[in-house]
């Protein structure tokens, strides 16, 4: 079983970003148990990290590990689409949009 390293880039602490963090943590707890590490990075506080990862939009969720790297942007409230985009669902080849 692979360990996951996830990075979530956000812009400030708003209701929308708090909701994104909460949704993602719940999603990871339910699907990855203790096999994940989630890093929350605010681009306003750490712009150099956003620059190094070439983040163009927030929220951006990056799956660093396992490889290959994957990156999604947009609404993280739809857990099924997020799982699919991260390759965590059983039929991730399905329609995401």
């Amino acid at each position, binding site marked *: 079983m692979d360990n996951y390293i996830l990075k979530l880039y956000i*812009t400030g602490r708003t209701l*929308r970003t708090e909701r994104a963090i909460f949704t993602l943590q719940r999603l990871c707890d339910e699907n990855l148990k203790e096999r994940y590490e989630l890093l929350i990075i605010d*681009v*306003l506080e750490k*712009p150099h990290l*956003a620059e190094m990862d*070439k*983040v*163009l*939009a*927030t*929220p*951006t*969720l*990056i799956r660093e590990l396992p490889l290959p790297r*994957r*990156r*999604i*942007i*947009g*609404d*993280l*409230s*739809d857990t099924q*689409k*997020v799982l699919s*985009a991260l390759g965590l669902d059983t039929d991730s080849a399905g329609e*995401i*949009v």
Partner: protein
Amino acid sequence: MGDSTEANGEGIVILSQDGIILQVNTAAEVLFNRPAEQLIGHELGYPVVAGGYSEIELVRANGQVALVEMRVEQTEWDGRLSLLAVLRDVTEQRRITQQLNQAKRFNEAIFNALSSHIAVINQTGEIVAVNQAWETFAIENGVCDLKNVGVGSNYFEVCRRAARLGDEWAARALLGLQTVLSGQESVFELEYPCHHPGGQRWFLMRATSFASDGWPGLVVVHVDITEQKLTIRQEVEQEMVADLAQQRRLELSALETLTRLEPLGRGEEMAVLPTLRERMPERFAELSAQCARLLDLAIQKRTFDIRQSVSGEIQALAEYLGLLKVGPRDVMEIYLDALKSRINENNVKKSNVYIEEGRVLVLELMGYILAFYRNYLPPVIRNPVS
């Protein structure tokens, strides 16, 4: 990319299924604040939307952040299945909305913080807004359903119903509101009683016309003025009592002056006769105390509506005084001494009652003494002419 979307200023980004930027339009370059060369080939990320669109922040090259609404559609680019992301800048729109919401919340907080009961009604009388105090007052006064007096109910109709049941204040209020609404008056004010089992209350109703977005309406404010009313009433009462007390003091003073005057038409020997107070000071004190007790009885009779007369006791006192051969001056001195003792012991209001009752009592006492002299003194004294 020269479609209508670009004409509307919407940014277009063509993405591969892996989220790599394949193409951008000019508007997208502006939104990202980056030239196309810096964007094409770069990984934006796989766009996930829920419910047709989602909001994202673009991290611009100048460090600023633009809030955009993103829609995503399937498309074909260079013969491959791709994604088309349409970006619309909503930064200014959200900023304005946020400011409006803040202003609205601020206004609502002020509206609800006011202790006056406020309702806004439109030209048909329909209540379109009320503050917290309005609703609280309604609930505290037995209104079970706020629909009857809250937003959506008709204030004119409420007044009409009350007026039909004989409430003249409601009829006057309705007339006044319509006067302001028609533009005949700019303001209407009405003081009205609104008593309840807990006590008396008065309110001031004030209606002011206003126009919002072209439709005329009224702001109706009800202010509890009970405290002011009671204060004014108390002040008036105190003034009246003070006036009365002043009148009584003058009256007493005049009576005292009279008792000190020398009798008219009498000889020198009569004028220098000592008074009862001088002749028998201890007896005078006893009689004054007895008179004071009679004053107490008279007050009790008046206060508690006791039917039993005190005339019998007054008559007994009169006969006793008659046996001591007192004159009118003695009677007045006894009465004034008794009255002063009671005035000194009581407040202004009660003192006035003592004075009022004392007038009747002293007249009655004089009458009985006169009757005593007529009945028991020798005819020559009763009627010197005969």
